[in-house]
């Protein structure tokens, strides 16, 4: 009995375990994957990490055209002589065309990969990135922008899946490269290939708590939000958006109540405009999820909890006025 058991375990080990065995020098780690579609063919560009003792960051770019993504992956295996691993994918670049037409197919493809995570960031481009633009640079650009300006924000593939399943509109960071390959950041709306403008992008990130520090001018006054959180609640009667923020103000005005009113009115107006123009379907779905038996979506109301930390009087601003 013991001998039979031993042989059974041995056979199981030999026939099952080695399936995923792959030595380090036999794998092709993909750091950047770009996907485009031209007519019915997919155009894939892989940046494979091929480190050497002299240059640990060495990358090799391979481009494949094929009829479906699985064929592309297999072809790449044959061409590169490496098993393709997407576990350490640093960035996925999608073009407008592929996101418009094949998002469900893409989601399925990545979910079916045994050796792939889905937490990598995604950006959208008109065309595939040219050789020379590194993932590190792009990601750092987005991170700094998110921190300092709030125009762009990191969106992971997991976020896309979640948003897609909730049937909400998907927004991806859209980078427009100038001729000199200098990145300029904007948020692009995926579904309709419609880009948000700079102000809308900031408000969108602010609304989703992606950025907490925003500055804007209103009536010759500069409002700087130094900390914020936006919370959305759905009740039977209404949808309430609660905005908690701490702000610093540069103004020639000193009336705290007045300044607070100006700030809240401005923010409400702008957010309302964003929600009406771009996030209407988001709130429709939100309402349906929470109130499935209610036919019409109720109005959105705003609640502000504003803490003015500092008002600094600027004579210069009074002169402008």
């Amino acid at each position, binding site marked *: 009995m013991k001998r039979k058991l031993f042989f059974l375990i041995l056979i199981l080990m030999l026939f099952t*375990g080695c399936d995923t065995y792959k030595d380090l*020098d036999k794998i092709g780690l993909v750091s950047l994957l770009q996907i485009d579609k031209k007519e019915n063919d997919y155009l894939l560009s892989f940046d494979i990490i091929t*480190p050497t003792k002299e240059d640990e*960051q060495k990358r090799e770019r391979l481009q494949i055209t094929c009829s479906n993504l699985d064929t592309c992956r297999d072809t790449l295996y044959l061409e590169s002589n490496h098993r393709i691993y997407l576990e350490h994918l640093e960035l996925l670049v999608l073009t407008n065309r592929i996101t418009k037409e094949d998002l469900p197919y893409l989601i399925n493809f990545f979910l079916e990969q045994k050796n792939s995570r889905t937490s990598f960031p995604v950006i959208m481009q008109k065309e595939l990135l040219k050789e020379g633009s590194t993932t590190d640079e792009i990601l750092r650009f987005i991170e700094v922008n998110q921190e300092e300006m709030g125009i762009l924000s990191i969106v992971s593939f997991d976020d896309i899946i979640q948003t897609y399943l909730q049937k909400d509109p998907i927004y991806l960071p859209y980078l427009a490269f100038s001729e000199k390959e200098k990145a300029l950041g904007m948020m692009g709306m995926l579904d309709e290939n419609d880009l948000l403008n700079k102000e809308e992008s900031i408000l969108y990130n602010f609304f989703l708590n992606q950025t907490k520090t925003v500055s804007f001018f209103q009536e010759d006054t500069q409002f700087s939000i130094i900390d914020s959180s936006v919370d959305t609640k759905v009740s039977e009667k209404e949808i309430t958006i609660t905005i908690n923020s701490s702000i610093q103000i540069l103004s020639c005005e000193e009336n705290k109540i007045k300044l607070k009113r100006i700030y809240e009115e401005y923010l409400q107006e702008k957010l309302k405009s964003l929600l009406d123009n771009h996030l209407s379907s988001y709130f429709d779905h939100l309402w349906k999820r929470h109130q499935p038996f209610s036919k019409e979506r109720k109005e959105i109301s705003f609640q502000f909890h504003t803490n003015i930390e500092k008002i600094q009087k600027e004579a210069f601003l009074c002169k402008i006025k």
Partner: protein
Amino acid sequence: MNDKIEQFKKACGNSTDLVIRRMKVASKEVCILFSEVLVSSEIVNDFILKRLAVMTEDTRDLFEKIRETLPSSNIQKTMEFSDTIQKLYDGFAILFTEEEGYLTIEAKLSLDRGVESVENEVAILGPKDSFTENLNKNLGLMRKRIRTSNLVIQSMSIGEESHTKIAICYMKDICKEELVEEILQKLQEISIDIIMDATYLKERMSEKDSLFPTIHTTERPDMASFALLEGKVVLVIDNSPYVLIIPTFFTDLFHTPDDYYQKNINTTFTRLLRLFAFFLSIFLPAYYISITTHNHNAISLDILINLIVQRQNVPFPAFFEAILMILAFEILRESDIRIPSKTGTSVSILGGLILGDAAVSAGIISPMMILVIAISAISSFVFTSTTMINAIRYYRFFILFLATFFGLYGLFIGFVFLILRLARLNSFGFFYLSPVAPIITPEIKDSFVRLSKGKKQLRNPLLAEKKMERGKSS
């Protein structure tokens, strides 16, 4: 007389170490017979032959007269021939006449070394003396520490040919009687020709299917005395510089003599360090194989790139590389033990540094693999028990094998298997993993950590039913 001498010669197979000396004592012919390799010739000459030579007065009971005359504490009269043969090989001189009976006179030659300092279980603090090959000396080293009538020493001999003396020591006011009885029964069941060392008994009394030691050996009298006061039984074996401590728990293997000679916080730190080293030693090579062959996603890209660079041009698969390194290390270790100490250092340098560096330069082994195996091997040496080090070695192989096939899943299976095996073991009826599993308070405070036990210093309730409280009972 001649018949008796012939009988001795025959019984001893005409051994050349047998010395037969005939002489006249008080007008009677006597024969003194002894083994020249076991008996001190000085004692025989100065205290037996010289005294006998001056005995001229006739007497009716010669044996009684000799007993009164000779200055020896151990002179016995026996009628059985078989007893005299045993005494002959115990270092006694046998004296007999034509009449019935024999007189056995102790004249042992001291073949022992003196009490020396500890060799293997080295401690920075605490006493430095260690056990020797002499049973009585060893018992004395313990008696010196526990000066009470509660320390009981029972004796018996084992070995069909060696008749090795074994002393069973325990504290009668602390130790469980059932434990002593079980040990005695196990000892009586042992059938063996010769007991060369304590490890012979350890082998026969331990759990058969356990790689981990269920009986602890020590060369330190202070550790043996500690164990006695815990309610454990100590077996002292003649001709062995090690004593056996029964029962032994898994946590005992993480304790060192130093632990009780310094502050609790230091002891806790080093014990946790040993626990970490235990897992590191078993699992590190397996973890490395897992992440480099199956679970590349378990480490960050930067480390992975570093590992890829290191493995470039290495012709062997990672598993084979690991096995090669482990075997090379084991060979180095074995040769280091066998080589005389004067040349040992140069071989260690040659093996450890030059060969390792050459292997990396030649592209046979990656530097990271050398690092992993070296850390794993060094970690196992925080333990003094050789059995424990060997157990770690086999489990390292086993889990490495599992990790090669199944990656981190295999490693986890190995971990569960290891814990289950440890939980299943018992040492003379006591759970091996106690006081951790099952949790035994207050002993848990002196397990993988050492915490203050408060005012009442309690013993392990599993072992010490009779007298739980240490010191003066309140």
